[in-house]
């Protein structure tokens, strides 16, 4: 005979303000097998927990039912309490009379009280069928995977590697570095971005515990925390990276023209290219999609022989390479190579993209002198398309007037309702850098608000005003195209309530930060959800910024939401700390609330096998007969197999038939 202890919580006034807690306590006392029924103000407080523990120690109760808030947050607390008092923690049941009762029936106190009684009776009924269960453990693979080699990913990887864990970094571009590698300088110190990033990139590239897999993409993720099996596609480079020295001769020789992604489309690269001068690893790739197969030089075939010279005709990239790293006669597999990794935890740090100007119809997007801020960043960068000379894209002339427009696509119900957080600061940075170099340059900045929350940020902004940069409050409404590719700016000065109209040579749009389309597929592959703003969703907006709802998968950097470099680095390090926990613990706890097949009752019919959504069931031979067996690591305790088994051979621990029938009876009586 079980001795059930019932504990009803007031939860301050959350429950007691609607439900008659005294009446519920009275009701519970009369239920069969209930040894004791108590109530208190806050069950989760030390006093409340002590109440339960004392009853256990005194031998009064051997099952505990708490009627309070949600098991989602509080079940672990009470289970710990049972355990510390010496009672098996799975002999615990919780009735949610807050979220499912007092919070939703606030206008019907009588009805809410009756419902509370029913919910409690159901929990008591369930608890009668509970058995003591033991946690199971699975070994953890002490490796980590970081998806994304931008600044957040790099710092995550370095932390994990320094802790001693083997860390794979999978990056889809030929080099790590991400968007930070495209920046000229960083606010508010005006540090040269490459100068502060390259040392860290090199450290990551040479760390004994880090394996960089660049020009690679994650294809499939299987398994669960501590035991992920990840398939990574190493894309075909068409260049032997063991021989390639990164000299760049092939890139110079290649005649193909492809918009250069690193320079935000401002100029072209070849099909054979090196991502950027400070690339890590500095290796060339041939972008076969845009390769024009010079001299008819198909991959996997011998070169054609020239009729004139009688010599074989090689492609310019092959001829140029001094290290013989490019050999187009080889039979390359265009799909590259699939590599399987075993890792214990995964950090997603895939970064962001900025919206393109073509989205903004009123901003003359076809004009060559309307550019995004990232394009401006490349224009003023020494490794950019103009070698750092500030020239207008249309005619390579020096601009005399530059306009900065804020909030394009951000804070906008037509695109993204959120603020992209970094634009105010980077616009001010770009304006300051330009004004410093070209004091006669007329710079007009148009903001809705100026957002500078960070260390030394507001001082940086005030400094911009002191330099003579013109700052206006009022969003630019549109641009009109003038002769010689100039733009007429239609703006408004809110502070003096006057419309503004002037001619500008170059207009820079601060376009919104967002995730690329490819993020959807990646989210599905890794098991990460999206939040309302279409970034990857963290576990809890306040208290769970690096975890996700999938155990073992963590987030870092802008893929979780727009942020600047210091915040990305902080989140990267935080994600590494959280990701290291299962690795450090060495084992992962599996909750025993899963299904189990009674081998003697199982008839080997196999009905359960295809029903399992997690592919956790397999038929195995036992004593020359087939019997079903459930993999405890894969089973999620959904119960489908349990209800389908015609022999009744499967038990879902924690949800036995006895428990469920007791619940049904309690709820329908």
């Amino acid at each position, binding site marked *: 005979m079980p001795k059930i202890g019932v504990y009803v919580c007031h939860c301050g006034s959350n429950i007691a303000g609607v439900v008659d807690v005294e009446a519920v306590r009275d009701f519970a006392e009369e239920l069969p097998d209930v040894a004791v029924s108590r109530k208190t103000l806050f069950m989760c407080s030390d006093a409340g927990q002590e109440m339960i523990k004392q009853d256990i120690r005194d031998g009064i109760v051997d099952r505990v039912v708490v009627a309070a808030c949600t098991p989602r947050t509080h079940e672990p607390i009470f289970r710990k309490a049972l355990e510390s008092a010496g009672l098996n923690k799975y002999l615990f049941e919780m009735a949610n009379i807050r979220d499912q009762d007092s919070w939703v029936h606030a206008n019907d106190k009588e009805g809410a009280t009756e419902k509370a009684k029913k919910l409690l009776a159901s929990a008591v009924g369930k608890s009668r069928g509970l058995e003591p269960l033991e946690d199971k453990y699975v070994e953890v693979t002490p490796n980590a995977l970081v998806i994304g080699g931008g600044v957040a990913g790099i710092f995550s990887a370095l932390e994990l590697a320094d802790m001693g864990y083997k860390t794979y970094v999978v990056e889809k571009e030929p080099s790590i570095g991400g968007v930070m590698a495209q920046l000229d300088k960083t606010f508010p110190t005006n540090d040269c971005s490459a100068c502060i990033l390259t040392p860290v990139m090199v450290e990551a590239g040479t760390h004994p515990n880090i394996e960089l897999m660049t020009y690679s993409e994650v294809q499939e993720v299987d398994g669960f925390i501590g035991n992920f099996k990840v398939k990574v596609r190493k894309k075909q480079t068409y260049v032997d990276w063991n021989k390639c020295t990164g000299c760049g001769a092939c890139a110079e020789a290649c005649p193909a023209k492809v918009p250069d992604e690193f320079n935000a489309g401002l100029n072209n690269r070849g099909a054979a290219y090196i991502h950027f001068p400070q690339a890590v690893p500095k290796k060339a790739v041939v972008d076969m999609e845009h390769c024009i197969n010079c001299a008819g030089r198909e991959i996997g075939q011998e070169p054609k022989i020239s009729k004139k010279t009688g010599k074989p005709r090689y492609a310019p990239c092959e001829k140029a390479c001094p290290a013989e790293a490019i050999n187009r006669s080889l039979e390359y597999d265009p799909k590259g190579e699939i590599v399987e990794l075993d890792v214990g935890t995964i950090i997603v740090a895939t970064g962001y993209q900025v919206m393109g100007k073509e989205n903004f119809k*009123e901003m003359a997007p076809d004009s060559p002198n309307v550019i995004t801020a990232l394009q401006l960043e490349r224009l003023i960068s020494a490794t950019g398309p103009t070698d750092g000379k500030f020239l207008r894209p249309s005619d390579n002339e020096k601009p005399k007037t530059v306009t900065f427009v804020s909030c394009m696509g951000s*804070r906008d*119900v037509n695109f993204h309702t959120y603020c992209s957080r970094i634009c105010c600061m980077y616009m001010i940075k770009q304006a300051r850098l330009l004004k410093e170099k070209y004091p006669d340059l007329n710079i007009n900045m148009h903001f809705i608000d100026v957002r500078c929350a960070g260390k030394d940020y507001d001082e940086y902004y005030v400094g911009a005003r002191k330099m003579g940069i013109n700052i206006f409050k009022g969003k630019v*409404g549109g641009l009109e195209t003038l002769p010689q590719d100039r733009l007429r700016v239609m703006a*408004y000065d*809110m502070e003096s309530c006057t*419309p*503004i*109209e002037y001619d500008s040579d170059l207009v820079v749009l601060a376009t919104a930060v967002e995730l690329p389309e490819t993020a959807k597929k990646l989210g599905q592959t890794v098991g990460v959800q999206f939040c309302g703003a279409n970034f990857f969703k963290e576990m809890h907006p306040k208290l769970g910024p690096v975890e996700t709802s999938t155990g073992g998968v963590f987030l870092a950097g802008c893929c979780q939401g727009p942020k600047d470099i210091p915040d990305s680095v902080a989140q990267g390090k935080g994600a590494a700390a959280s990701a290291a926990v299962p690795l450090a613990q060495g084992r992962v706890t599996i909750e025993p609330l899963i299904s189990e097949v009674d081998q003697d009752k199982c008839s080997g019919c196999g009905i359960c096998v295809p029903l399992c959504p997690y592919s956790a069931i397999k038929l195995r031979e036992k004593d020359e007969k087939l019997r079903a067996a459930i993999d405890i690591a894969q089973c999620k305790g959904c119960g489908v197999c349990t209800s389908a088994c015609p022999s009744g051979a499967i038990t879902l621990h924690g949800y036995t038939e006895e428990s469920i029938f007791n619940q049904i009876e309690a709820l329908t009586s």
Partner: protein
Amino acid sequence: MGLEIDGKKINEAVKTIVDYGGDGILNCVQCGACSAVCPGVRAGMPVLCRLLIRRILNGQLEETIEEMSTWACQSCNRCTEICPQGVRPQEVVFAFRRYQANDLAISTSAFGPLMSFYETGHAVTVKDAAEKREQVGLDGNPPTSLNDEEAQKELQALLDASPMGELGIF
């Protein structure tokens, strides 16, 4: 001294405008994009779009009622097209116009068209219209309500039964 922020007055102002059809007004974050493209503002009309909304959100409905800038709104709707918060500023301006009109604080140039509208069904009429029409080969009497008594009576019935009828201008 200075503008007194009276919560009750603000709520009433907002409610008035919303009831007259400007239901997007509370979405406004005062970004100013509407004013940047408004032909009225660009031509120099002092109180339109963003500033008009600011006055309403400050509770200054009565204090702004004499402002004739609102009667210059072209309904071009550039503001509606580019507003990033879905305010539909043109509808707010017109809601304010309705507030003004119901107090007869309208531009003097509006009375003529109104009377013409009531009498003939057309806000604009021209004396030599029939001549001009015949000159180009059309029937001097256009197929509209201009000379159609029945149609005029229908319109007058609608206008008499409407809030406009209560203004005593017809």
